[in-house]
Structures are given as C-alpha cells and as structure tokens.
C-alpha cells in the first residue's frame, strides 16, 4: 500500500492544524510552514506523477476496507497531472501573495490556503463519488474564505453571491448522488462503471437524470454557460492572487467531467448523455467569453471572461468524447490555467495604478517590463504563436476536424475577438501617454514579477516540449477511455 497517495491530503491538513494551534499570530512562522508545505506538495506530486507513468492506476484503501464498501483513493495519470498542475500553480501564487503582502491583509490566509490545497488534492485523488462531494465542499469553503480575504464591501458582497450559488450547486450534487446510490446501491466510481454496464433497462431513465444533475454540478464549477453567472463578479472582486488560484478551480469541474464521463460514457443507459448537452453549451461559453473580453471595462473582468472562453474550448473538446479530443482538452486545460493565472497576477499588479475601472481611461499604467509580460501572457491567452495557446488551439482544432465547418469557425472567431480585446486594452493601458489624471505607474515589485515570469516560463516549457507532453497526454487519454486499469485497481469483488 503506497502511503504517499494520501500525503497530499493529510500533509496540508496537519500543517494547517499546526498553524491554528501554535502560530495563529506569528506571520513569519505561518510563512515558513506554508513554504514547507507547498514545496513538499510540489515534490510529492512530482514523485506521484512519475509513479503514475509506471503503474496504470493504484488504489489506496482508506480504513483498510475493500472497495466498494470503504472509500478508495485512486492515483492515475490524470489525477497525478492535476496534482502537479495545482501544486506548481499554488507554489507560485503563494510566493506572489507573500512578496506582495497579500497574506497580511486578513487573518488565516495561510491556513485557508493549505486547506484549499487539501480540498483540491482530495477531489483529484478520490475514487468515491460521495467523497468527491465532501472534498468539493472542503475546497469550496476554503475558497469562500480566500475570496473574501482582505474584506471590503465589493468583495464581501460578491462573496455572498458566490457562496449562495455554490451552495445551490452542492445541494444539486447531493440530489444526484442520492439518486445514483438509490438506483445502483454503490458510491465507488469504478463499481459504478461496472454496474452501469449491466444496469436493467428499466432504471435507465432514472440514472440518466442522476448523471444529468451531476453534469450540471460540474458545469457550475466549470462556468459553463448558462451556469457561469457567478464567475465574472467573483473573480473580478477576489484578491488578485486568489483569482489566479481560482484558475484551477474551474478546472475541477472539467476534471470531474472527464473522470466520471469516461467511466460512464460506454454504458448503454448513459452513452453520449453528457456530450449531447456539452457541445452546444460549450459553443455558447466560448462566445460569451470572447464577447466579454472585448466588452469588459476593467482588466480583472476581462481576464475572467478570457477564462470563461478558455473553459468553453475545454468543454468543446471534452464534448467530442474521443481520446484525441480528451488529450487536447487536457493540454488546453494546463495551458489555460497557467495563462489565466499569469494574467490575473498581472492584473493585480497593474490595476491599483490604473484604478479599479475603465481601461479606456488613462495609459502609462505600468513600466515597460509589465507591458512586455502582459503582451506575452495575452499572446498565450489569445492562442497566438509562438506560445502554448497556439499549440493548444491547433490540437483542439485537429481533434474536432470531423465537425470542422462549425467548430473551427467558432473557435477561430472566438480567438479573433479575444485578440482584438487584448490588443485594445493593451495599447490603451501601456501605449497611451500619461494624462494629468493618470496615477504614477506602480514601482515594479521584483518578487511579483518573478512569479509571473515563472508562470510564463512554464508556458514556454509547455510549448517547447509539446511533443513529449502530448505523447504522455495521449496515453493518459487512452487509459481514460479504456478504464480497465482504473477499475482493476479497485479490486472489486467478482470483477476480473
């Protein structure tokens, strides 16, 4: 039994508990513990990633109870990928929050941050549907805390909406899970896949409803139109680094769709159930995102909409439901997480100088360095060469070639609007000469810039090593679409 699998969940919990117990008021100690935790998590997830390459899937039976009766964690390539992405992103963002002093602007930042990590890792590792709900709640409630970190009217008000909307989502999640248990009598995902394959036809309709509800839950997380309304306000109001961290939160929804979707897609009752809804909604999501980029007045909102648009592309690829498309979706997910996060950090650095609203306004918001970083991040986000956005776009287009006419024009038009939006904002922000009303550019914070550079470096790496990375992702997608290894790892009674 490989105890490393539980570590990404217990480690942050224990360290967070320690902070609460011992270091409630000692910022330095909190930062030290945080640093240790994030480095350890990064190391752990890299180790797990390498393991996941060797063994198709390994299960960790909590409480030593056999599946499906107890709860299992399952480590496979997908979960390992998400762990690494999360840990890497979080490490950079955490460092940014420290160097910019964001962590001092309210209590318990580091505790909440660690619990956030626990929730995310738990969600990515669990092999149990109800446990997925529990860890969704963990990561959500931590995100509520981070979102209103630092307080302020706008933030707290947006927070109320964010919480209420997600509570609705959680309730829906429970409805779906209860229905699933009521029909199949199980909660273990692998067991679910096995039982769905032989489900009596009379139960088909009910199980379809159950999974449709689950799809809606994940759609809310992933900001799929028309369930995305909570996102722009929340992300624009959240502290910069938190918004950047949230770039991975929408991906949790996408992750859950891929994880469960690939397990149920072959079953007669639920075959093609999700795809039917995903594709049209994804097209709308892309449109709303792209139009929003062109139509936003404030930089953070603009980035939020760019994030929505990128989720649209991801969902489009997931909706195609082929291994190639899934692989493209994964690459696009990793890319857009990094790009969105980088832009949110930049927005956080630029916006104070530029003033809350209104990119029309005054230029000279920031130094040349910032301009260069912004341009790089924008190029990545808009899917222009030479950064990973372009590669990701090509991968998705190639995977969608069966419905080329519609899909390609949609994706390309969306990226045109995004390019126009970013060009407009960029030239207004950085090229317009300072007017007397425009505030002096904020002095560059080398630490903060280093954080953004780190993210951009990751994006460059993603581009340069696109070959090996996509090869690895292709194998991941293959394993997802033929989940025998995943199911076997659960060692279910009576299942070879």
């Amino acid at each position: 039994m490989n105890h490393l699998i539980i570590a990404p969940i217990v480690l942050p919990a224990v360290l967070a508990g320690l902070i609460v117990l011992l270091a409630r008021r000692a910022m330095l100690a909190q930062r030290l513990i945080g640093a240790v935790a994030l480095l350890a998590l990064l190391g752990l997830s890299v180790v797990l990633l390498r393991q996941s390459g060797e063994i198709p899937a390994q299960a960790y039976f909590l409480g030593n109870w056999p599946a499906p009766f107890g709860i299992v964690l399952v480590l496979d390539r997908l979960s390992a990928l998400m762990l690494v992405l999360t840990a890497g992103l979080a490490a950079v963002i955490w460092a940014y929050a420290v160097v910019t002093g964001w962590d001092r602007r309210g209590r318990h930042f580091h505790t909440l941050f660690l619990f956030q990590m626990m929730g995310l890792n738990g969600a990515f590792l669990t092999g149990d549907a109800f446990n997925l709900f529990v860890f969704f709640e963990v990561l959500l409630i931590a995100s509520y805390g981070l979102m209103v970190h630092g307080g302020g009217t706008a933030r707290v008000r947006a927070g109320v909406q964010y919480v209420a909307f997600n509570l609705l989502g959680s309730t829906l999640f429970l409805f779906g899970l209860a229905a699933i248990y009521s029909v199949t009598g199980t909660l273990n995902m692998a067991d679910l896949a096995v039982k769905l394959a032989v489900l009596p036809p009379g139960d088909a309709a009910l199980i379809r409803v159950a999974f449709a509800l689950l799809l809606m839950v994940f759609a809310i997380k992933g900001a799929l139109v028309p369930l995305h309304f909570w996102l722009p306000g929340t992300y624009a109001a959240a502290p910069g680094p938190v918004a950047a961290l949230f770039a991975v939160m929408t991906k949790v929804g996408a992750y859950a769709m891929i994880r469960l979707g690939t397990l149920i897609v072959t079953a007669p009752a639920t075959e093609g159930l999700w795809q039917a809804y995903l594709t049209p909604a994804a097209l709308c999501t892309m449109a709303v995102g792209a139009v929003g980029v062109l139509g936003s007045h404030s930089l953070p909102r603009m980035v939020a909409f760019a994030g929505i648009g990128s989720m649209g592309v991801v969902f489009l690829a997931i909706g195609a439901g082929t291994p190639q498309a899934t692989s493209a979706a994964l690459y696009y997910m990793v890319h857009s997480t990094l790009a969105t996060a980088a832009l949110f950090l930049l927005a956080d650095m630029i916006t104070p100088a530029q003033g809350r609203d209104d990119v029309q306004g005054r230029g000279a918001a920031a130094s040349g360095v910032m301009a260069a970083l912004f341009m790089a991040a924008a190029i990545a986000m808009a899917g222009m060469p030479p950064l990973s956005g372009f590669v990701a776009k090509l991968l998705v287009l190639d995977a969608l070639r069966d419905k080329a006419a519609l899909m390609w024009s949609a994706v390309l038009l969306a990226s045109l609007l995004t390019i126009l939006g970013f060009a407009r904002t960029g030239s207004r922000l950085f090229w317009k000469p300072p007017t007397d009303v425009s505030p002096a550019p904020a002095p560059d914070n080398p630490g903060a810039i280093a954080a953004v550079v780190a993210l951009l470096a990751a994006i460059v790496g993603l581009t340069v090593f696109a070959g090996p990375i996509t090869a690895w992702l292709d194998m991941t997608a293959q394993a997802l679409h033929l989940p025998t290894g995943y199911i076997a790892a659960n060692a279910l009674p009576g299942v070879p």
Partner: protein
Amino acid sequence: MEILIASSVGVLTAAGLYLMLRAQTFPVILGLSLLSYAVNIFIFAAGRVAPGMAPILDPAAIGYVDPLPQALVLTAIVISFGMTAVIVIMALGAYLNSGDDDVDAAGSDISGGAG
C-alpha cells in the same frame, strides 16, 4: 407514506427556491436551509424508508433500514451547518459594509459599466 415524503421534499424544495429568489440575503439564507432539509430527506428516502427498523444491531430486530444514506445525511447536515454559518456571517459583513442586505446589487461597484 412514500407520497407524503416525496411531496414534503417537493414542497421544501419549492419553498426554499422561492425564498432564494427574494433578492435579499436573509431570505436567501432561509431558503438555503430549507433546500438542505429537502435534500437531506431526499438522501434518506433514497435508501427507502420503514418505521421501527433502526440500523442498530439487535438480535431481536426484524430487519434494518439502509444505514448508509443515514450516514451520508449526517455528513450533509454537518457540512450544510458549516456553510450556513459562513453565509450568515458573510451576509452580516455585506450588510455592515454597504448598509443594505440586497443580494442583486452585489459587485456592481466593481463591475465597471456592467452594473
């Protein structure tokens, strides 16, 4: 009996959503707690119901109802309690910060044009 339970779930859900649509924080909170009642009963009912068959091992017992949904409901109750507490305090914060407890206007002051 089932019809009673199902209808209770329905009425609870409807009432909860109706309150959630009332555009002020406090009704929204009340609505959410009604919704959580609804879903708790739903989970519980999903394990099918029967009186006098509590899942507490006892040689004299004629049988037991499914204990798992009950355990799930326990978890759900606790979590929703935590969530309720959080949103109550957030609502307080929003009210104390802005002087009204309207939900709909939230964030309009940072939306830049979209408000």
